[in-house]
């Protein structure tokens, strides 16, 4: 009974996970110390981060070697697909918490603060959006949708297209198209981040819009900030894929790592569309 080909790859014992745990312990306790002004918190975070980078390199390096060495059968490939899908779903739920917060303050929290009873506490408060709460200390300019943000939307959408174009190249065994497409996608991602950074600087400077600018600043910077972080992670994933493509990895039939990075990129893309509509536009 059973078939030899059904053997599911079970990796050998590995030292990498424990490095990951040590890294997070260092970063966690270091961050606590840092935030509370206890030295040497910042150095612990840095050390933890370096350990984490080591661990990620080692772990993923090994996965790549196993993959290229042909250890992963069709079933393992399927496992990877399921897991990436559900991982992205968990990320969606993480963003949902912040989108939910934005929705709540805009349609429930603020109107409540501005109702007749609450005039007792905050006389004359107008619950309009954008809003930084009843105690606004300094005037600020809200973010405008039809400047850089609209451009950024265009950039991200284009990057989704170039990525698909790269994928076609991979499927049609046109390595040049694959590499060019990937490089272009990454470039667009970096441009996006550059614009984002410029926008932040502009907000802090000319617009007096800060993380501390009440609920508007809080939701704006947390949502766009976490999105930016995800763009960065996605760009790093794509960069790894670029190097692997140059090194000749991936075949038209087996290139799940590439697809995973692409899924992630598209997910980041979709989050941006939501952001553009509810954070910048409406």
């Amino acid at each position: 009974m059973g078939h030899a080909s059904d053997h599911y790859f079970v990796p050998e014992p590995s030292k990498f996970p424990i490095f990951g745990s040590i890294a997070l312990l260092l970063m966690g306790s270091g961050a606590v110390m840092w935030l509370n002004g206890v030295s040497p918190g910042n150095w612990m975070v840095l050390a933890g981060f370096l350990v984490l980078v080591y661990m990620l390199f080692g772990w993923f390096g090994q996965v790549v070697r196993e993959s290229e060495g042909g250890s992963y059968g069709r079933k393992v490939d399927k496992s990877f697909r399921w897991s990436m899908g559900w991982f992205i779903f968990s990320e969606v739920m993480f963003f949902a918490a912040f989108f939910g917060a934005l929705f709540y303050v805009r349609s429930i929290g603020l109107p409540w603060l501005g109702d007749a009873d609450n005039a007792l506490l905050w006389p004359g408060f107008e619950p309009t959006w954008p809003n930084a709460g009843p105690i606004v200390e300094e005037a600020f300019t809200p973010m405008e949708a039809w400047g850089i943000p609209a451009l950024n939307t265009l950039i991200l959408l284009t990057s989704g297209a170039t990525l698909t174009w790269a994928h076609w190249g991979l499927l049609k065994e046109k390595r040049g198209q694959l590499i060019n497409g990937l490089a272009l996608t990454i470039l667009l991602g970096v441009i996006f981040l550059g614009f984002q950074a410029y926008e932040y600087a502009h907000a802090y400077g000319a617009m007096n819009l800060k993380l501390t600018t009440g609920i508007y600043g809080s939701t704006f910077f947390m949502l766009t900030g976490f999105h930016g972080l995800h763009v960065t992670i996605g760009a790093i994933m794509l960069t790894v894929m670029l190097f692997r493509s140059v090194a000749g990895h991936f075949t038209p039939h087996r290139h799940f790592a590439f697809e995973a990075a692409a899924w992630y990129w598209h997910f980041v893309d979709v989050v941006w569309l939501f952001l553009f509509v509810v954070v910048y536009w409406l």
Partner: protein
Amino acid sequence: MSVRARLAVFVLTFLGASAASAGEVNLQVPVTEIAEQIYDMHTLMLLICLLIFVAVFGVMFWSVYAHRKSRGAIAANFHENTTVEIVWTIVPVLILLGMAYPATRTVIAMKDTSDPDITIKATGYQWKWGYDYLKGEGEGIRFVSALSTPQDQIDGRADKGEHYLLEVDNPVVVPVGKKIRVLLTANDVIHAWWVPAFGVKQDAIPGFIRDTWFRADKVGVFRGNCAELCGKDHGFMPIEVHVVTEEEYSAWVAEQHARVAATAEDPARQWTLQELAARGQEVFAANCAACHQADGKGMPPAFPPLDGAAIVLGPKGEQITTVLNGRPGTAMAAFGKQLSDTDLAAVITYTRNAWGNSTGEMIAPSEIGAARAAN
């Protein structure tokens, strides 16, 4: 004894114990219509649940008793029956509908805070309640109400009184039979205003006003607690409501107004350091000692000492700002909203001259007024 018998004895023991001390095992005796409805609803729910419980576990324990291998039971082999399964899905739904009906009525009644006779605003502070009579007879009365049980009773150095932990210095007073609307808010963290006998519990949320209402049918003294974890002394911020007849209420209102008039501060009064510090000691005991302790040593690192603190010994401006505006994000509240200029001046003067601190400085009430104005 069989399992069933053992459990039966066990349950009976509990029921027996319950009956013996009725009143302490059930909801408190209701004194408002809403509380009455809640009480009856709870009794009804309990009975329905008990009934289902007895039925389900009657069957189960009968099976445990009769269908055991040691009695020679042979296992049957059925493993589904669509009819039964549909029945025991539908029947609970019907039971639940029966439960939801009275509950819905009461929810709607509880939410109807319209047309009150008297409106009182209650503000939760760490760890006391401030009351403001906003509308209706007694308008303008305001006071702070804090635990009056002596610390010695809590620490076991004195015998505990009858109303241990459920007594306050200044109780809320309301007339019987009148609709009282209570507006709730808080100054620092979330508290909850709860008087069980009225069937009222409402969170007091900092920065928001929430409301609830009650109409007490009986005169008497009714006690409750803060019902939302609010820090160190959450267990020590009770609520005491005196429901009195209308005449007594009018008398109380008159007395309150008279007292306010009598003790009205003469803004021009000239204080001596001693007078101000003596008053400050009282203010400190009532408002600050919970955190900074009577001996000024605080409870570091959560609550810093004031004895010897740089800010207390340094220029007075900064201390005035700290006490007036608090430190956002910490337990140090903005006392400017709670205390009068004189009280603030007194307490600051006190801290600058108490314990090991001896600046010999006095802060005049007018300086507080000036600091407020500068804000």
